[in-house]
């Protein structure tokens, strides 16, 4: 119950925090580290707005304890762009009109990234399946799917690393 020290690796950078074991990764990201790009909503792994990558796998940060993340690599939306250069998925979401209110978008982009990184032949059915855990109420998913497929088509051949 007493707070414990935890070294978190977020977007390649080490963060040393002292947190009670019950604190979720989502809470620590948003409240302790000020990384509010990862969003909060249902807190029950039903909506996906809190999606981050944990060792390259998409997970709901609201049900991951921060203490479970020692020695593991966390990637949040803040880690996607390289300086001023947007990640191709971010670029595609802008270009295809896939962003409306934007609240689901960080989680959506990370879920899409995880899918594209491991899929040699992404297709529409696969994209929709990959995003099934990310609710969007604004877009009806259509332009999001188009953006992900466009980013897939634009990447060099052999870019997918395959499943982690």
């Amino acid at each position, binding site marked *: *119950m007493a707070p*414990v020290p935890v070294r978190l690796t977020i977007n390649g950078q080490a963060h040393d925090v002292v947190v*009670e*074991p*019950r604190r*979720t990764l989502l809470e620590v990201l948003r409240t302790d580290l000020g990384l509010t790009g990862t969003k909060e909503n249902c*807190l*029950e*792994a*039903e909506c*996906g707005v809190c*999606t981050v990558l944990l060792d390259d*796998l*998409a*997970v*709901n940060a609201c*049900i*991951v*304890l921060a*203490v*479970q993340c020692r020695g593991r690599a966390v990637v949040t939306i803040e880690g996607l762009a390289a300086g001023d250069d947007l990640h191709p998925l971010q670029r595609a979401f802008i270009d295809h009109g896939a962003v409306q209110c934007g609240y689901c978008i960080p989680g959506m982009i990370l*879920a899409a990234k*995880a*899918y594209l990184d491991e899929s040699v032949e992404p297709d529409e059915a696969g994209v929709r*399946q*990959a*995003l*099934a*855990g*990310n609710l969007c109420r604004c877009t009806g998913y259509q332009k999001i799917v188009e953006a992900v497929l466009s980013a897939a088509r634009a990447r060099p051949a052999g870019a997918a690393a395959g*499943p982690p």
Partner: protein
Amino acid sequence: MSFDYHEPTSVREAVELATRFGGDGRFLAGGTDLLIQMRRGQLAPRHVLSLHRVPGLDAIEADHAITLGALVTHRRLERVPQFRGPLQALIEGAEVVGGHQIRNVATVGGNIVNASPAADVVPVLLTLDAEVICLGPDGERSWPLEAFASAPGVTARQPHDLVTRVRFPRPDPHSATAFLKAGRRRAMEISLVCVAVRLTLDADRERCLDARIALGAVAPTTLRAHAAERSLQGRPVTDEALHGAGRVAAGECRPITDVRASARYRALLAATLVERALARCVTRIRQAA
């Protein structure tokens, strides 16, 4: 929620801690059930024993039998190439659980221990005659999966028992499995009814040698439809026989009416999904020829 957190680094240490804390402790695997129940106030363990540093619990082995480590995630289960033949239903059951985020962390062992009557992979394992193997302070114990859960959330394990693996025999020749699920939407869904079926036909692929039918969300625990299975044994797998088996299976169910569906609709789904899953098995067996 407030608790002490422990990270055992071996199976033995995990069992020692569980024995020490007894009912005050819970194992944490993927967290997709435990952490949500804790947040809702349904569970409040004083000690949480995370298993993610315990080695040896996530192996998938195939020799004379097939063994799934308790920490095998649904994601890994979906991607086992060897399961694409007669064990296809394992993939079909795993891939409809939640969304990717859930499947990436949710484990087979956690799913079995959670003992939800609506679980998706459990019915498939039931049709495979799976057994659950636990390690306790006094050594290993195993149960047939069918005997493991007795009520929603209640299993035969004691707090000091760590589920280490699930094991089932290799499928017989001329066998196939199938899994079907009904829900109000196509993903992120707790089944209204789900059905898993394993069918073994004779060498001519006409007559049923053996059948296993398991249903979820139609009884307090996942249900084996024994009478429906017997109704097929030794008989030609005609449309009429499959339809009849579906009706018998529906009769064995004890569905309830709840926010998700009425009992009457669940019975209709049970009959239909059993029939369709059986038909799919027949097709799979004959196409594999």
